């Protein structure tokens, strides 16, 4: 009956809540945006997706945080010290929860233990595994109090490592490392973070409204320690839709301040002269070959033949057709840091040999090794998104005309695609990788034989040795040499074929300034944004 009652209520009061949403409001320092989907969860113990991280990055703060330029800066911790065997953090005393109580070392210890206990079943538990005993706590072999992290007084945290972890500081900026207040979380039980009122915040914004699937509102947190640096008073999110043209329509109508563009809406936006901004995502996209012995793609010559006929710039310029997407041959995107500067500037990859003649040569070798004349169809596992389909059709035609290999595109519902990838039920899969933290190893160990994300099951003792060596030392110049070796092996062995590094392009209201995008485990970042009227 309550549903009927609600319908009646909706009918009666439908236009009372009416208000005209404006994309930007200069006087009120207020903006409206749209979200791609409802945040699946705002419990930092369980969040594992971009939309949730986007909200969490604005309402919560970890020990460290990334600034506008994606550099690590102080968060709740004001000082820190990183050693081979561990790290120590000293917390600032003016960091407060939204109910006015101070953020203490105990809140971090509680949260980290909570992530790891098996009953929480956190998907991102692995990101805490560099901490001593973390993995065993997560397996239920040790009680949570054996975790190698201690609160010393209210404002100091000591962390012990399982093995050297030169990138640990970057990890502490990740949402899974956020603090949680024990008394509050336990009091709410299973309903913690089920609604806006069931959450405590310590970040620059407060979540003040959360109508599921419809409307979220973030308002400036006046108790935030660095509140003076936050200029936006409110981020209103009255629209939730994944439909790119709906979002663009809302932007054109002036209802939202930013809209992500796809190939079609970008051209329309350019034609209308809409101001636009381009953001690096730090993501790498690639074709993953199945290297299990019963697969045609296990043959290196076949993989090299595919590498030889594939021109990355064709894909970025003509199939995707958006500026900023960078064709690449490397496992490490341009944002990965090297010894002093960028890894890619310090160790530029050698492009692989390309061309029709080389492809024919390699294909003949593959055919004689496999003892076949006619190629059986290869299965290309692709995502169902519009750009995913477009790329899949391009690769299908490329292999058909270039190598005379028939390709069958297998597009399934999302979970089935994932299942097929995990089971190794494919020949070629279209995949991508988003970095979790600011270190080359987040890409480097992707092809280690023990990594579950190595879906093609690349198994090279030499590659594994390089990953182990890079993990065993904190010496950046040595580590970068190992990574550059991996980069070379990748071009020679072709376990994956990198295609491009992605960017996102947004149409943006010209009065909105200071928007950046988090490269590591996040999305757009409005913490430094402000609204300013255009000079007439």
């Amino acid at each position, binding site marked *: 009956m309550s549903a009927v009652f609600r319908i009646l209520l909706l009918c009666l009061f439908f236009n009372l809540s009416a208000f005209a949403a404006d994309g930007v409001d200069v006087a009120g320092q207020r903006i409206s945006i749209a979200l791609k989907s409802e945040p699946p969860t705002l419990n930092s113990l369980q969040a594992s997706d971009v939309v949730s991280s986007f909200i969490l990055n604005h309402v919560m703060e970890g020990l460290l945080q990334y600034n506008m330029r994606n550099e690590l800066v102080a968060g709740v911790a004001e000082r820190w010290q990183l050693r081979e065997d561990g790290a120590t953090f000293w917390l600032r005393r003016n960091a407060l929860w939204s109910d006015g109580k101070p953020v203490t070392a105990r809140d971090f210890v509680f949260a980290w233990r909570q992530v790891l206990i098996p009953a929480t079943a956190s998907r991102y538990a692995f990101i805490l595994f560099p901490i001593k005993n973390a993995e065993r706590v997560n397996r239920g072999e040790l009680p949570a109090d054996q975790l190698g992290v201690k609160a010393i007084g209210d404002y100091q945290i000591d962390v012990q490592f399982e093995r050297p972890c030169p990138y640990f500081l970057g990890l502490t900026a990740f949402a899974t490392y956020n603090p949680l207040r024990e008394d509050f979380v336990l009091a709410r039980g299973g309903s913690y973070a089920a609604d806006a009122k069931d959450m405590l915040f310590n970040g620059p914004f407060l979540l003040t409204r959360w109508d599921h699937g419809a409307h979220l509102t973030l308002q400036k947190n006046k108790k935030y320690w660095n509140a003076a640096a936050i200029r936006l008073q409110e981020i209103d999110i009255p629209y939730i839709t994944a439909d790119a043209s709906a979002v663009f329509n809302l932007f054109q109508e002036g209802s939202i301040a930013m809209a992500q563009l796809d190939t079609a809406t970008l051209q329309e936006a*350019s034609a209308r002269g809409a101001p*636009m901004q381009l953001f690096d995502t730090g993501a790498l996209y690639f074709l993953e070959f199945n290297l299990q012995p019963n697969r045609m793609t296990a043959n290196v010559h076949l993989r090299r033949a595919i590498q030889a006929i594939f*021109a990355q710039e*064709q894909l970025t310029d003509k199939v995707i057709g958006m500026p900023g997407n960078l064709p690449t041959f490397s496992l490490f995107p341009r944002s990965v840091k090297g010894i002093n500067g960028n890894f890619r500037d310090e160790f530029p990859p050698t*492009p692989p040999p390309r061309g029709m*003649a080389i492809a024919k040569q390699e294909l003949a070798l593959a055919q004689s090794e496999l003892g076949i004349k006619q190629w059986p169809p290869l299965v290309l596992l692709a995502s169902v*998104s519009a750009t995913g389909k477009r790329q899949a059709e391009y690769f299908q035609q490329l292999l058909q005309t270039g190598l005379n290999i*028939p390709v069958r595109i297998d*597009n399934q519902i999302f979970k089935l695609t994932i299942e097929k990838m995990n089971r190794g039920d494919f020949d070629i899969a279209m995949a991508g990788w988003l970095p979790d933290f600011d270190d080359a190893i987040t890409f480097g160990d992707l092809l280690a034989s023990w990594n579950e994300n190595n879906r093609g099951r690349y198994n090279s003792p030499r590659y594994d040795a390089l990953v182990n060596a890079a993990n065993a030392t904190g010496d950046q110049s040595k580590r970068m040499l190992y990574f550059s070796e991996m980069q070379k092996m990748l071009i020679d062995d072709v376990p994956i074929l990198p295609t491009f590094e992605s960017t996102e392009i947004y149409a943006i209201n010209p009065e909105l300034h200071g928007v950046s995008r988090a490269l590591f485990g996040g999305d757009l970042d409005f913490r430094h944004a402000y609204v300013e009227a255009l000079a007439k």
Partner: protein
Amino acid sequence: MNTQSNIPAELFEPAVARPTLDVAVASALPFWPALRRQLRSDARAIVSLLVIFILVIAAVAGRGLWPLDPAQQILGSAAQGSMRAQRALVVRTTIDEPIIELSPAALLPAPQLASPQHLQVLEATTERVKFRWKLVAGAHSYRIYRNTHAPRDHADLGLPLGFTTARGQVSFSDGLLLRPRDYFYSVVASDGADEAKTFATLTITPQPAIGLLEAQLQGLVAADVHDVTSAPQTVLLPAHPLGTDHLGRDLLARLLQGARVSLFIAISAALLYVALGLVYGAVAGFAGGAIDHWMMRIADFVIALPFLLFMILLRIAFGIAPGESGVMPLVIALVLLSWPSTARLVRGQVLQLREEPYISAAQLAGAGNLYIIFRHLLPNMLGVILVTLAFAIPNAIFTEAFLSFIGMGVTPPATSWGAMSSDGVQNLLIHPTELIWPALCISVTVLAFNLLGDALRDALDMKVQR
């Protein structure tokens, strides 16, 4: 039938064996000749039959009508309107080597960044535009903008196309969706943090071209050709009377292929499920009582099944073998899940008709159930059934389109009008023809079937005729 209980059964004799007594039935004219005569005099029927005939011929003949391969991608001619065959220069696309100019004086900080001088075109084809400029003192990097109109001021430049990455790089190469038209390239110097407000603009009109690798992939140039710089050659790119889609595939060829798939799905699925629903509904309505009750509960059960989930399930259960388009699982799923609405409608009609006096009359005359169903019930329901069928066909096309829209439709390289519309909607803003043609095909098909349905209905309605 309680009322008959006190009348002795032997007073009734079957009437069917005596043709002389069949006057009442025979006066309804022989069915098919009357229908044919009626249709021939109905303009709607002639037009719609003609359209359906043309569509079916087009679908069957396919490549015989228009020989281009519907899967062939010529990326250089993507998203174009109607175009004639044109010559394109074959060019070698190698990885771009940027021009580096390092002079110590130029790297010193300058109080104000000047606009770049001496812009010079190095390459101008639709495969790649490359140009260079003279180094600007104090510039760390340069941003490049591309417009299709001459930019008025700095604010008019829009989104940067890209920026130089190497130190001292004074050239830029662009290959982003180039067409043979005028482009205005602007170069702005930047000192690393801020961008100068002055810029220099260069107008370039790229020449139609195709990359060597792509030309070889399409079989336009032999595979062993390496050098096209010393011996330039051109190839003839095919004409596209209706234009191309976002991957440079010929729209006409794809429409013909889509016709085959869509019409097959529409006609076979619609006929099968309407037939199934008709038989089911007629039996249920005629049988009545408990049989009717439980048959309708089964229909309710099938209607309430989550269509999408079972569609996906059936797709997986039937599997799509390599080289198949996934049409059969779709038809089977449609038939298995769509019949109940027809069944309900037919049952409603039967319930109403069986109360009509002529049914009782036929029953009294000793007619069997089958005879009554086929001779009396079905002809009297033809109007509603034909309307249902007329709508069942677009319904099947739309279900296929909806599944394409969520990525569960036919498997590429096969295509359908629904899948083409789904692609077209994505590109509606920039290239509406990609939507208009398949949408028009769907419209015309629906129109034809509807008109035919109407004409049939009128033709079968003997009372109107007299």
